[in-house]
């Protein structure tokens, strides 16, 4: 198998060459652009520049999208625009935190399983058990057990996605473990830990980075689904899933409540998928055939 050498290639390339390949990839640039827009919107929301997402006004309930309320208002009379923009930083926070948890634990577990064959069986059976749950069911059960909340949601999704990443890391580590390159490091007396950190991981990172962008996207989708089912962060927290859920009773009479946060999710996940595709093309050229 030539997999290992192919994967080992990209990060050893000169940096500017990688960058120029990235910049010339249209999807990747668009995806990165969307992510930048998200981050900007997140900052705007965090600073409260998009208006008060929690301000209730009995007089301005169910206002259609208009000059005063760009996205209209909900049944509390709150501005959907303020809520959607404020929700952006929550989605980013959830996405980044889940990616961080998944990255740390997935890489750690995957690397140990891949590098130490004796532990492999036990670790991967545990991962299999977690993966045998349909992801949403596991997250619902964990969220119900821990209680609804932002932190608990992040933990639930982190636990749900870690096995996946661990599998990918393990496969990548298995791919490079027996390469001549690692063999020579081992012969020169390097410790296992050093070999993993210095040699194995850097050379198996490409698929992991690609996978993590998709985990980011899944986390945003899963947050929305869980909030919709009522096990996400409690109201009045304006996560996108909560906003959609709050509009579900008024789909016909005030469709704007659910439509705008739905579009925001679609737009963000689209951006992350474009970014992931682009990174795969650039970092993992097996699938690129230009």
């Amino acid at each position: 198998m030539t997999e290992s050498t192919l994967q080992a290639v990209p990060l050893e390339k000169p940096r500017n060459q990688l960058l120029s390949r990235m910049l010339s990839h249209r999807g990747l640039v668009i995806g990165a652009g969307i992510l930048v827009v998200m981050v900007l919107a997140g900052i705007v929301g965090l600073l409260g520049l998009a208006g008060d997402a929690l301000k209730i006004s009995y007089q301005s309930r169910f206002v259609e999208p208009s000059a005063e309320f760009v996205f209209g208002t909900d049944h509390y009379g709150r501005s959907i625009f303020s809520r959607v923009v404020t929700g952006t930083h929550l989605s980013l926070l959830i996405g980044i935190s889940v990616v961080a948890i998944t990255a740390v634990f997935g890489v750690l577990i995957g690397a140990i399983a891949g590098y130490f064959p004796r532990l492999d069986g036990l670790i991967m059976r545990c991962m299999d058990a977690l993966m045998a749950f349909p992801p949403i069911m596991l997250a619902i059960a964990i969220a119900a057990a821990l209680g609804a909340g932002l932190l608990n949601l992040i933990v639930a999704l982190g636990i749900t996605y870690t096995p996946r990443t661990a599998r990918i890391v393990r496969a990548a580590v298995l791919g490079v473990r027996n390469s001549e390159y690692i063999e020579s490091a081992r012969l020169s007396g390097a410790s296992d830990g050093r070999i993993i950190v210095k040699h194995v991981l850097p050379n198996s990172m490409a698929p992991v980075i690609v996978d993590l962008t998709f985990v980011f996207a899944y986390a945003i989708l899963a947050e929305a689904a869980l909030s919709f089912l009522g096990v996400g962060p409690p109201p009045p927290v304006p996560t996108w899933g909560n906003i959609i859920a709050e509009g579900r009773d008024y789909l016909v009479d005030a469709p704007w409540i659910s439509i705008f946060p739905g579009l925001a999710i679609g737009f963000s996940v689209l951006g992350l998928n474009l970014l992931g595709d682009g990174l795969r093309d650039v970092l993992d050229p097996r699938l690129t055939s230009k």
Partner: protein
Amino acid sequence: MIEVILRRLISTIPVLIGVSLITFGLIHIIPGDPAIVIAGPDASVDQVESIRQLLGLDRPLHIQMSVWYMNLLQGDLGNSFMLGRSVLQAIQERLPTTLLLTAYSIVITMPLGIAAGLLAAYRQNTWVDTAVMSVALLGVSVPSFWLSIMGILVFSVMLGWLPSSGYVPPSEGILACLQSLTLPAFSLAVFQIGLLARMTRATTLEVLRQDFIRTARAKGLAEWKTVAKHALSNVMIPIITVVGLLVNVAIAGAVVIEQIFVLPGVGQLVVQGILRRDYPVIQGSILAVALILVLINLIVDLLYAYLDPRLRND
């Protein structure tokens, strides 16, 4: 081969034990128990306690757990606290709905997803490719529960073409049954079509680059014949894996979709079980779903190994 299958089957047992242990742990961390649900909001502490005794919930956890495992060995998943039937019976009643929904969505997905993926690969880097892949990308970017409520808005409220909820079992008419599942199945399928199209394209491109295709092309075979004869047959192997993946995705998606459309499936059984703290139901139905997923993944792995000799010794 039989030995391989047996070995793999046995290796699923610890996985399932792990699943049931995790479930057991989780459901007993969840605040509130079935006694509280049954006793109602204004019950006194004594009332709740007496119901707890009635349901056997006052026994220590390890006793409850060992009783459950002992019963499981005899093929008994226990009785629901609320449904007035055994868990096994409840699962038997619900499973067909979920499987039908899953199968329906995959039947929609397969031709559309594969055709889109092949088309895009064959017309790589043209506007066709861009257009098809953009749509596919949109498909995997939009949350399916949002699509389904928008689907209700458009197809049942505005157009009145499809029922907005409720399930008609096949015994009451195949056509009505399919009609009741159409909106849910399409809500699920959109994501899967996007996923399958993207995978098919990627796999096809990889296969097309391989030497035997180049050789075939060099021999001057008509292009469509090349694709049809050589590429497709090679693409089928990974597609089997994809079907396995799709079943996983569909069953996971069904959990949310069954809630929205009030379909009496296993996903709804689990969610309702959690909401009512019906421990035996949660325990049994999660185990059942896990068993199905594990078996499907097993079959896929075995088929894959069978079709791809390189992996047979793995």
